[in-house]
Every structure is written in structure tokens, then in C-alpha cells.
């Protein structure tokens, strides 16, 4: 019964999205309002059916209905309810169902919000989104069907992968990532629709800007949450390993970041049209590519699920999207011709171009490292793996240049900056950065990469603060406002700009966290008897006891340590090993004590069965917490930047750009010679 309902919903969603896509594409050509309406209603219907199918699956999971194939794969009577519900995305078929549901949700939302706008474009946008839906519902109806009947019905299931039920973050990281990933279909749909209809420039650019920002926020938060999850769960004290699937989430992020900068150039200067279209197509393709890597098992990875027909399906879809999009770009190349872009080297356009070049170079670097094992095997028949050293070596210079630009970009005016203005803006930040560089060196920050990161971070923050300070100062003079009021009014007037600057500050904070934690991490292993103490990096770590216990879904061995510093007790820490019934290997759970300056990270590595000794790995990780904080700052800044829509400003979008311009006289007044 459950199987029938769930599967029926999937099949209906497939046919409805097919019919809707056909109607919408037809409407794009004929401008028929009846067909447009039909396409729109189909989008709502698909979302309703998707919701029905996902609720059916959640119900089956919670009810332990092992006659449903997906439940039989990931369910278990002993798994706690929370992990039972989130096991919806712990394995292949369920995660594709979740994906389809989010896609249907995005589709319905976009179609609803823009029901009265962009009339010449929306039918094609609807059609494109529904066509992407067709692919996912086809996948669910056939090779990834999670509702296959199982007979005989097993008495119990193996439960989700133990690693995925070891930390509540599993409830957060995948949905964020999916929201980011799947959301990239929306800007793609706009770009694709503009190619189909030939409406290549215009108002809709602003809609796209918002719709790249929303998934970008989710993707950023998802990546940071994933890093945090791996830090809290995997027990090696790191947060990023350049695993193919980590890269797969990072690649679309890089291209989307490039796009959300270059789209501003197009908005301002009606240029870079082809480039932007290519970026938006690349972003979407890279999300498909990332999914292909994860779901098809073509590269070895901790995330890779098993294959079957899903790989070939994805490859087919990637091929269609790639070939059709590129053919459309080639066909529309005449309309995509742009005006020349650069008036002066010292302009924001230049900064954006550099930023784009760097981000695209970064993308290629990561992409090459990710697929290199495949290339090597195809061309030379050897199995190689590309490790972290390659990625680190290649990415550090690019990352440093990008940090430089996070500060310089916002400080440069559009078109051209006068030497006078530039001197005023750059003098203090440069002076402070030079002093800071000396100070860091004297403070024994002698690792070149870390030192350069810190210096550039100071420089960038100096420039960014100046961007707040200068106009705030002008407001104070003009309106007699206090500092906080001036900054508040200023940022509220131009959320998009200042939200963006906050995002930049967050990125700088993340960079500092990464640089310091990766270069100044200290680590040692110690085997202790109860009562024995090891001293490491100023911490006195005493093993108090070692004991075993049982929880409904697992057994565990736990070691209790008292941690003190200079004889003053700091914390009781209890790293453990969990034993899940369906896993031969224990899953370690480190215990992390987080402080603003450094983390103390204990992992139980081994222990004697009689409780006489425990081996603990001690890691002292400086400044890690700033990566998570920076991630939060980025998300908040970006939310602030797009928050104008929430205030109902959406219908007045055509005047929207005036909000942007309003703030400029203020700044021009400050900058004086800016224009």
C-alpha cells in the first residue's frame, strides 16, 4: 500500500512535469496565456505530488515498513527516531527523492513569485525547470525507485551507515547542501530561457542575481556545516581533505561565486553576457557533475554510494544539458555581443574580472585534481590518487590573491578611480598591514603562507572598514547622527552592498581560521593507565577511568579525562568509540573543547579490554572556531544582502536599482573626486 502510494506519486509527478514542460515551452513560442497557466499549474501539481511521495517515505521510515525497499536498506528498529527520519537522505534512492522534492519546491516557488513578471521569459523558465524535474522523476520512477516492494519482508533492517547516525549535524549538513545544489537549477533556468527566447539582456538579470544568492547561501552554509561535521565526527582533527565529493560541492560554489560578481558587471555595464551565461551553465553542470561523482561511484570517496543505472542516466543528462546549452550559446552568439568593459585598470570592473579569472582558475585546478585519477587511468592505465599536497600547493596562492581582492574590490569605484581617491582609501590600510606584518613576524608567525594570509587579512579588513567608516562619517556630518545610527542607516539604505561587504569580512575570517589552524596544529599520541597524566602544549591531561556502556542502538567504550592547565581544572572530556551492530569497525567520537584561541581535541584510538590502558590522540588546533564563525558571518551578511525582497520590495523591482544609486551620492560626497 505504502509502496503503491509513493510510487504512484512519483509516476504522476513524472508525467505532470513532462506535460507541464511541453506546455510551457509551447507557450514560450506561441505566447499563449492558457498554456503558460497550464505550465504554472503543472509546477504546483508536481510539488504537491513530490510532497506526497516524501511524506509517504517518512511515514514508511518511521513505521519501519520494511516492505519498502529504501526502508529495508536504511531502516532499523533500534535506530533513534531522529536518525530514522533523517536517514531519508542517508542513502542513494532516498537522497534522490529528497532532491526531487526540493527541486519541485524551487520550481513551484519561482513560478509563483514571478507569475506576473518577465512575461516573455517565464514560460521558458518554467519549461526548463520542469524539464529538469522530468529527469529527476524519471530517475526515481526507474533506476532509483525507493518504493520497490520487498518480498519476503525482512524482520529488521541494517540501519543507516553508522557514520551518518553518529552526530546530529547529519540533520543539517545534507539539507543545506541540497538546498544549495538544487537551487542552482533556478539561475540556470533563467539563463537557458534567455538563450531560447533571445531575451539575453534586461530586467531578469536582477531576478537571477537574487536566485544565485539564495542557493549560494545554502551551499556556503552546507559546505561549512560539512566541514564542521567532519571535524566533530571523523576524529582526525581536520575539516577538509579534498575528498572528491568535498570538491564536488566546492566546484559549483567557486563558479557561482564568480557568477554573482560578474553578473553585477553585466547589470551595470551591459557587458560579459556570454561569460555570464557560460558561468551559470557551468554552475548547474558542476552540481550535476558533483552528483554524478557521488551517486555513480566513478571515483573512490567516503561519500560514494553504489552505482547501477543511475550513473549512465546522469551522464546522459549531463551530455544533453552540456551540448544543448553550448549549441544555444553558439547560436545566440550575435545577440550576446557585449560592449567593451574596461575604462581604467583601477576600477571595480577590473577587480571583478580578476576575481573571475582567479575563481575560474581555482575551479580548473580543483577539477583537474579531482578527475586526474580518472584521466591517468584512461590514458596510461595506472591507478593514482591526488592528495591534499597538490590541492594545498595550488590553492594557497590563488586564495591569497582572492583575499587581497576581497578588500580591494569594494574599495575601487566603478569605471575609474582617481589617484587622489585611491591614495586616500589605501594609505591607512597599507600602513596598518605593513605594521601588522612586522608585528606578526616578531610574534613568531614565520610560516610564509600563514603570515601572508594574516597580513592580507589585515589589509582587506582595513579597506572594508574604510568602506563603512567613510560614508558613516559623512552621514554623521550631514545628519548629525551618532556612530551606530549612522552605520545602521547607511547599511539599511543599501543592504545589497553592505551585506556583500559583511560577506567579505566573513570570508577573511574563514581564511584566517584555515591558515592558522592548518599551520599551527600540534598533535601527539599517548597511552595512559588510569590515574596517569600526560602534559601536552600546556594541558595536563589525566586519564580518570575507562568504561563500557550500552545504548539502544549501539554499545560504546568511553575514556574520561580530566584536563587542567597550571593545576587549574578546565574540563572533563570523554572521547569514545561507538560500536554499531551493523558495522565491523568502531566509529570513534572525538571530544572537542572549543575556545576562541584554540581547540583541544581528544580521540580515543585504542584501549585494553581489561581497562588497564587507553591510547588517546591529542590535537591542539588554533583558531578553528573562527572558520565556523566566519561561515555564520558569511551567511548572515548574504541574508542581509538579499533581505530587500522579504520586505515586499519585490514588485517595485524596476525601481529597485534606484535604492542602489541612492547611496552613491553619499559615497561620492565622501569620496569627493570619485567620479
Amino acid at each position, binding site marked *: 500500500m505504502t509502496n503503491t502510494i509513493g510510487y504512484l506519486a512519483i509516476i504522476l509527478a513524472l508525467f505532470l512535469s513532462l506535460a507541464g514542460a511541453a506546455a510551457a515551452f509551447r507557450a514560450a513560442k506561441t505566447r499563449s496565456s492558457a498554456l503558460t497557466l497550464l505550465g504554472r499549474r503543472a509546477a504546483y501539481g508536481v510539488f504537491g505530488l513530490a510532497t506526497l511521495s516524501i511524506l509517504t517515505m517518512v511515514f514508511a521510515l518511521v513505521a519501519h515498513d520494511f516492505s519498502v*525497499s529504501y526502508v*529495508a*536498506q536504511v531502516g*532499523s528498529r533500534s535506530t533513534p527516531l531522529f536518525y530514522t527520519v533523517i536517514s531519508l537522505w542517508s542513502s542513494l534512492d532516498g537522497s534522490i527523492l529528497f532532491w526531487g522534492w526540493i527541486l519541485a519546491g524551487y520550481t513551484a516557488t519561482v513560478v509563483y513569485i514571478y507569475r506576473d513578471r518577465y512575461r516573455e521569459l517565464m514560460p521558458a523558465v518554467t519549461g526548463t525547470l520542469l524539464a529538469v524535474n522530468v529527469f529527476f522523476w524519471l530517475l526515481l520512477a526507474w533506476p532509483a525507485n525507493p518504493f520497490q516492494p*520487498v*518480498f*519476503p519482508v*525482512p*524482520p*529488521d*533492517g*541494517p540501519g543507516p551507515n553508522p557514520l551518518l547516525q553518529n552526530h546530529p549535524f547529519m540533520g543539517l549538513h545534507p539539507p543545506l547542501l541540497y538546498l544549495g545544489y538544487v537551487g542552482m537549477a533556478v539561475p540556470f533556468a533563467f539563463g537557458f530561457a534567455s538563450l531560447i527566447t533571445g531575451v539575453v539582456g534586461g530586467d531578469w538579470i536582477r531576478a537571477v542575481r537574487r536566485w544565485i544568492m539564495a542557493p549560494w547561501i545554502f551551499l556556503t552554509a552546507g559546505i561549512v556545516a560539512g566541514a564542521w561535521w567532519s571535524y566533530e565526527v571523523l576524529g582526525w582533527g581536520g575539516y577538509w581533505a579534498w575528498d572528491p565529493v568535498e570538491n564536488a560541492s566546492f566546484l559549483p560554489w567557486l563558479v557561482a561565486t564568480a557568477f554573482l560578481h560578474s553578473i553585477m558587471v553585466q547589470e551595470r555595464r551591459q557587458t560579459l553576457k556570454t561569460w555570464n551565461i557560460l558561468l551559470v551553465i557551468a554552475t548547474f553542470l558542476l552540481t550535476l*557533475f558533483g552528483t*554524478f561523482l557521488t551517486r*555513480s*561511484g*566513478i*571515483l*573512490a570517496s567516503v561519500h*560514494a554510494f*553504489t*552505482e*547501477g543505472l543511475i*550513473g*549512465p542516466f546522469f*551522464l546522459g543528462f*549531463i*551530455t544533453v544539458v*552540456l*551540448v544543448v546549452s*553550448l*549549441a544555444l*550559446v*553558439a*547560436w545566440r*552568439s550575435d545577440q550576446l555581443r557585449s560592449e567593451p568593459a574596461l575604462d581604467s585598470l583601477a576600477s571595480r570592473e577590473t577587480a571583478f574580472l580578476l576575481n573571475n579569472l582567479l575563481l575560474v582558475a581555482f575551479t580548473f585546478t580543483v577539477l583537474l585534481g579531482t*578527475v586526474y585519477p*580518472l*584521466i591517468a*587511468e*584512461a590514458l596510461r592505465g595506472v591507478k593514482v590518487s591526488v592528495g591534499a599536497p597538490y590541492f594545498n600547493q595550488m590553492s594557497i596562492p590563488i586564495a591569497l590573491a582572492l583575499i587581497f581582492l576581497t578588500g580591494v574590490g569594494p574599495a575601487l569605484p566603478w569605471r575609474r578611480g582617481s589617484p587622489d581617491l585611491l591614495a586616500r582609501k589605501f594609505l591607512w590600510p597599507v600602513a596598518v598591514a605593513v605594521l601588522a606584518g612586522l608585528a606578526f613576524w616578531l610574534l613568531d608567525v614565520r610560516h610564509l603562507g600563514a603570515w601572508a594570509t594574516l597580513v592580507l587579512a589585515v589589509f582587506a579588513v582595513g579597506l572594508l572598514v574604510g568602506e563603512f567608516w567613510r560614508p558613516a562619517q559623512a552621514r554623521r556630518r550631514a545628519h548629525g547622527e551618532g556612530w551606530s545610527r549612522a552605520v545602521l542607516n547607511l547599511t539599511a539604505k543599501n543592504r545589497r552592498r553592505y551585506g556583500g561587504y559583511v560577506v567579505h569580512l566573513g570570508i577573511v575570517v574563514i581564511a584566517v581560521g584555515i591558515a592558522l589552524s592548518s599551520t599551527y596544529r600540534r598533535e601527539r599520541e599517548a597511552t595512559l593507565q588510569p590515574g596517569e597524566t600526560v602534559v601536552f602544549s600546556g594541558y595536563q591531561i589525566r586519564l580518570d577511568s575507562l568504561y563500557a556502556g550500552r545504548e539502544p542502538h549501539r554499545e560504546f567504550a568511553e575514556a574520561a579525562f580530566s584536563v587542567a592547565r597550571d593545576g587549574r581544572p578546565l574540563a572533563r572530556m570523554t572521547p569514545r568509540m561507538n560500536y554499531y*551492530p*551493523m*558495522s*565491523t569497525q568502531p566509529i570513534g567520537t572525538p571530544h572537542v573543547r572549543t575556545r576562541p584561541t584554540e581547540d583541544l581535541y581528544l580521540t580515543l584510538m585504542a584501549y585494553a579490554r581489561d581497562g588497564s590502558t587507553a591510547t588517546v590522540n591529542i590535537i591542539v588546533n588554533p583558531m578553528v572556531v573562527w572558520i565556523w564563525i566566519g561561515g555564520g558571518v558569511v551567511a548572515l551578511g548574504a541574508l542581509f544582502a538579499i533581505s530587500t525582497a522579504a520586505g515586499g520590495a519585490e514588485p517595485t523591482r524596476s525601481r529597485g536599482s534606484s535604492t542602489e544609486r541612492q547611496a552613491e551620492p553619499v559615497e561620492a560626497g565622501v569620496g569627493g573626486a570619485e567620479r
Partner: protein
Amino acid sequence: MSWKRILIPAAAIPIIALLAYGLTRDPNLVESPLPGRAAFDFVAPTLDGDTLSLSDLRGKVVVLNFWASWCIACIDEHANFTEAERRYADDDFRMLGVVYQDTPENARRWMQRMGGGWPSVIDASSRIAIDYGVYGVPETYFIDKNGRVAFKQIGPVSWMLLRQKVDSLLAQPTSTELKTGVSGAGALHSSGSQP
């Protein structure tokens, strides 16, 4: 500039080709060092309450199948084992199951429902699975009359594969035969992993 218009979409071809090639590989398949070596011996309790050791079956072709009641692919291959047991009833052939990470009650119930008279041993702390390097269920090891592992199958065993392996092991259980069994394993593997 029409060549340009063709060239842009054509840029996609090498990428697609590379990914298509990638699909033909399975990076999770780690070549097992076991084929050609003596199968690890074990003594373990069976589901029926007896005790069984692998070395007791020396001189027979043994199909050692790791399974669990929660394993769906195990349902698919089970009928093939039932059929093999019937077909080779008069030969030097034995089916032997190893219950992988499952409760004895669930395993017993499953076996009763699915049918099949061969014994299955309980692998209490996954010792046997660890010795054999089991990655997941189902996995099946074909052991020759000399007690050597001739072939390892990851994933369900098809009737074709089962018959082919058992027939050849029953026919010529010499050490030279084993070598070809090993070299043939790779080819069978890749064809077997694509349903």
C-alpha cells in the same frame, strides 16, 4: 564563423568521453588477495545448534556465502543457491552460509521462509568476515577441493556464474586450473558487477 559554432559544443565531447570511461570502472573494487590462497579455517556454531568447521569439508567444492536477513540482494541470489544444492546433490559440493551482522533469530526465521537445507554459521563478532575481508553482503567465496579460495564474488551471484564456477571446480581441482581461475576472475568481476 560557423566552424566556431560547431566547435563550442564539440568541446563537450572529451569531457563526456572521460566520464563515460569512468562509469566502466568501479573504484570500490579492491582486488582481493585471497584467490589462490588457502581459505581461512574457522569453527563456529550453526543456526541449528551444531558446530561446524570449514576444514571438515576438505575434498568438497564449497560455496561460502556471507548473508543477512536485512540484505535485499541476498533474497535475489538465494534461489540460485537452492537450485545449486538440488543440482549438485550427488557431487562433492557443499553450500555453507555465514550470517553477517544479524541476530540468530532473524537469520533462522529468514532461512525457514526462504528455504534451503544447507547450514549457516553464526559469526558472532564478525571474526570470519574480517578474516575474509568482507566489504558488505552478499559476498561469496568459491573454495576448491584443496581448500583454496578460487574466486570471490562481490554482490549477488547469478545462476550462470554459479554453474560455471562450480562445474569447473568440480571437474579439475588441480593447482594449474586455479591459476586460470584467478586470471579469469577480473573479467568476470567487471561483467558481473553490472546488472
